Structure formats: structure tokens, C-alpha cells
């Protein structure tokens, strides 16, 4: 019975993930970074990383989960959580509806219970296709509930961030999600919880300045833009052009803000190692 359900869940996840995959108008796709054309099947085999230059093309939340989790382990959490329109912002509800139609997501985050290499954990994945993965009340609430769920179940928490920051259309309520999520992470960690923060392109603004920077372990995909202020705002403020590679993962590693850069095909082995290293610790 259980296996039947997990099979069904897997099919749903695969369906969602396929929906997020490359829509093949042609059989080959050019890399936006190096310009080289590769067969879509090679992009796919390479989890949407350019087979020529290693450019990490953004992927959707379900796609990432499908690539990451043990088959049959995916169980979505809080999937009914709906976005709100606390400012009654003109045009916002329509925008949310269009995006739901377009992406199959209710808002920019998906939370799930799952396992990698048989290690159970709570996952949250942000999706940059949904208003740049920005954090409004729904994203803040989902991250918070996931952290609280992980606290209660004594499970590790793994969050993949991809976000332009706070969501403007929800104004001050978006800002408060920074405090709310940071507080939930703090509470989780103070009770011995392991939080692995995985940063993907781009992670900026209020997400960088809250839960995304608080990992016990800090990891990032190669070449991801990670920062508080966006490069254009900085350039306007200081009146100079920023050097190449500024605010990229490699730069953050060099400046002491990351433990390691992990290429997309390495997430599973790295997470399996880390979860293994924390087993038998204080909390289990």
C-alpha cells in the first residue's frame, strides 16, 4: 500500500519535473554562457548543466527534487499553502494566477519530506520562475513551517535558495518574513538541528539577509550570484564597474562565506556525506 502511494507520488513528481524541463522546440539548445549548441538529451543527462562549459542553467523546484531525492521518498509538505495579497496590490492576484497556470506552482517555494541515500530530511526548494523566487508571506510561511516541522521531527533541514529577495508586492509583510524565517532557523538550530543551506543562482536581497545565510553548512552551485545588494544597485551607488566574478560563488568561497562549491551532479554524494557525518550525534 505504502509502495503504491510512493509510486504515485513519484509519478507526480516526474510529471512536474518534466513540465519544468526544457521544452524541445528544436533538438539542440544553445548555451547562454558559451554559445555552444548541445543536444537536449545531453543537457538533460547533465541535469541542465552545459556539457561544453559547465554553465548551470536554472531549474525548477520539482525538477531539482526529482534529481536529488531517493526514488519513492518524495512527499510534499504544505502543498496547499496559498499566497496572500496583504497590501491589496493592484494587479497582484492576477499575476499570481497567471504564474500558477504557467509554472504549476502556488508560490515560489516547494517543501518536501524525502531522503537522499536513505537519510531522511526536510527540504525546501525555491523556484526562480515564480516572481524571481521572491519571498512574500507564502514563501516565508513555508520555510518557517518546514523549519518547525524539522524541529518537531528531529530531522535535518536542507534549503535550496534561488531568489531575488523580498517580494515588493507584499511590502512590509515580505520584510517581516526575514525575521520570521531567521527566528525559526535559529530555534531549530538551538535545539541541535542541522541546517544545510544550498545557494543557487541567484540568491540576493532579503533571502540572503535571512535564512539563506544561516546554514550550519553553507554550499553553493558554481557561478551563482549571491549577495545582499544587486550588482546594478552597487554600481549606481559607488559609480564604478564591478570586477568580473564579483558576488559569484567562487568569490564568496574566497571571502570565507561558503564551505564548498558543489556542481549540480554532485549534490547527492555531498549531501549523503554530510547527513552521514551528522548521524549518531546529539539529536538522533
Amino acid at each position, binding site marked *: 500500500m505504502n509502495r503504491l502511494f510512493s509510486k504515485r507520488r513519484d509519478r507526480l513528481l516526474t510529471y512536474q519535473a518534466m513540465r519544468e524541463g526544457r521544452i524541445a522546440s528544436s533538438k539542440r539548445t544553445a548555451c547562454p554562457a558559451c554559445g555552444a549548441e548541445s543536444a537536449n538529451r545531453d543537457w538533460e543527462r547533465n541535469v541542465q548543466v552545459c556539457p561544453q562549459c559547465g554553465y548551470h542553467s536554472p531549474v525548477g523546484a520539482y525538477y531539482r527534487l526529482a534529481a536529488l531525492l531517493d526514488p519513492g521518498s518524495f512527499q510534499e509538505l504544505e502543498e496547499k499553502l496559498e499566497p*496572500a*495579497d*496583504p*497590501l*491589496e*496590490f*493592484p494587479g497582484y492576484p492576477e499575476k499570481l494566477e497567471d504564474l500558477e497556470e504557467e509554472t504549476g506552482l502556488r508560490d515560489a517555494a516547494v517543501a518536501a519530506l524525502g531522503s537522499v541515500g536513505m537519510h531522511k530530511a526536510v527540504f525546501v526548494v525555491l523556484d526562480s520562475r515564480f516572481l524571481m523566487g521572491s519571498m512574500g*508571506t507564502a514563501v*516565508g*510561511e513555508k520555510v*518557517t513551517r518546514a523549519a518547525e516541522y524539522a524541529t518537531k521531527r528531529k530531522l535535518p533541514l536542507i534549503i535550496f535558495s534561488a531568489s531575488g529577495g*523580498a517580494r*515588493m*508586492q*507584499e*511590502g*512590509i*509583510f*515580505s*520584510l*517581516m*518574513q*526575514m*525575521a*520570521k524565517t*531567521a*527566528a*525559526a*532557523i*535559529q*530555534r531549530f538550530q*538551538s535545539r541541535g538541528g542541522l541546517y544545510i543551506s544550498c545557494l543557487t543562482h541567484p540568491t*540576493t*536581497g*532579503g533571502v*540572503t*539577509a*535571512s*535564512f*539563506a*545565510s*544561516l546554514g550550519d553548512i553553507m554550499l553553493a552551485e558554481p557561478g551563482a550570484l*549571491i*549577495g*545582499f*545588494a*544587486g550588482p546594478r*544597485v*552597487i554600481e549606481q*551607488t*559607488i559609480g564604478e564597474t*564591478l570586477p568580473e566574478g*564579483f*558576488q559569484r560563488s567562487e568569490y564568496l568561497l574566497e*571571502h*570565507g*562565506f561558503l564551505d564548498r562549491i558543489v556542481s549540480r551532479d554532485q549534490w547527492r554524494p555531498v549531501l549523503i556525506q554530510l547527513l552521514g557525518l551528522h548521524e549518531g550525534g546529539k539529536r538522533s
Partner: protein
Amino acid sequence: MSRYTPEEKVKLARHPERPGTADFIEALFTDFFEQRGDRLCREDGSILGGIARFHGRPVTVIGHRKGKNLEENLTCNFGMPGPEGYRKAQRLMKQAEKFGRPVITFVDTPGAYPGKEAEERGQGEAIAQCLALMSALEVPVISIVTGEGGSGGALALAVANRVLMLEHAVYSVLSPEGFASILWKDAARSGEACAVMKLTAQDLRRGSIVQGVLREPEEGAQTDWQATFRTIDAALGKELAALDKLKGPALARQRYEMFRAMGQGLPPAGKEDV
């Protein structure tokens, strides 16, 4: 309705003669001992903090400092802190908790500084750590938004048991100029942004983002500093007395629950909540 439009309030909140953190510390506290530096990199003048007495009782007081003239503006970077400022604030708050002192913060910043070195030294991480630390402090924390509450740079000092706002202060996810340029690619539409952002003290009280609005003199705090000081003094005294009834863990819990509940939307506009 207020006599001032949200756009006018933004101007009042930024008024150069409005009292700032240094003025509040001088007027409301005695025995102030300034603490400087983050012990890691450098001293950031845009955050002023230290130990002082509030009606005889030692407290830790921290606030954004904009400066009163061009020279001060420059040393204070116009009240826009870098990570060093936020790390200094963390250092002071940890000490406050260690020695059982309440934390009182004054919030008045256009936002955290969007600079090259600030990014290099982890502006995002510094703010995130402030939020996490403040959320769990087992001493009373009271924040007063006195002027501009700009973005994460303001929130980093405002995870409090009670967040109060001066009547004409503003508090928002981003400056109205930044908001307009992100959403409409046109910073000149900031007036329009003010109208939709719900950034006034009255709006925020209604949305339970702040717990109290402190009345200002008719034409704004800059016209009568003494009256403004008296109002803040009374409010701080009252809030501290209320929070003194809670023990350390209960203070952390109350703060957690308060921020936990944020994001349920604004109830419909009612009468003025001052």
C-alpha cells in the same frame, strides 16, 4: 485620516532637523558609555551603541546614526551601515544578554549600504545573524522606529518584543524610490509607491507590524524635540515595566510568536490609531 499623505510623511521622516539616535541617547539616558568596533574588522559610525542608564537602570542602547552635518554624515555614511555595524550591534546585544540588561534600539536608516566592501564582508550574513540573534535574546528588547525604517537594514535592529513608531516615521520593505524602480523601472514614480506601500505608522499599527504609535508635535518631531523626548521616555518606561513581568525564556517566546504571526494581511482601514 492623517493630515499628512504618505508621501509627506516620508519627507517628515527624512527631515534633517528631526532628532536622531545621538539626540535620544543624550536626552533620555544618563551615564552613556559608547562601545565601538566589531572586534573583527573596523568601527562603523553609522551604528551608535553602548551602555547607559534609563532612569537609573543599566540598559544597552543601539541605533542608526545619520549625523547632523556633512562631516558627521560622512563618518556615519548617512546612516547606512555595513556588516561591521551589524556585527558591532550583535556584540553589544550578546553582552546585554550576558549582563541581564534590556536592549533599546532606535531605528532610522535609508537601508544597509549597498557597497563593494560591504558585500565582500558579508552584508547579508551580518543582517541575517542580527535577526537570528535578536529573535532569541532572553532580555527585554524594545525598538522605536524614529525616522526612516528602510528595509533589512532597519529590521536588523528591530526584532523586538515591542516595536513602536513615531507618528510620522515610515517603515518599508525598500525605499519608495527603490520600490518604484524595481516594480516600474522608474524611480521618479516614488510618490505613487508611497501611496501603495502602506509604510506609515498608522498602516503598520493596523497590520500588527508595530505595537504602538507615539504621537509627535503637530508639525513633526523636528519642531519640538523636548515634547518628542517626553513621549518616548514615557513609552519606554511603560513598555519596560510590562516586559519586566516576563522571564527570559518567556521574552524570547513572546517575540518569536509575535513575528511568527506576521503575514496574515492588513485588516480594513479604520480610524486613526494614534
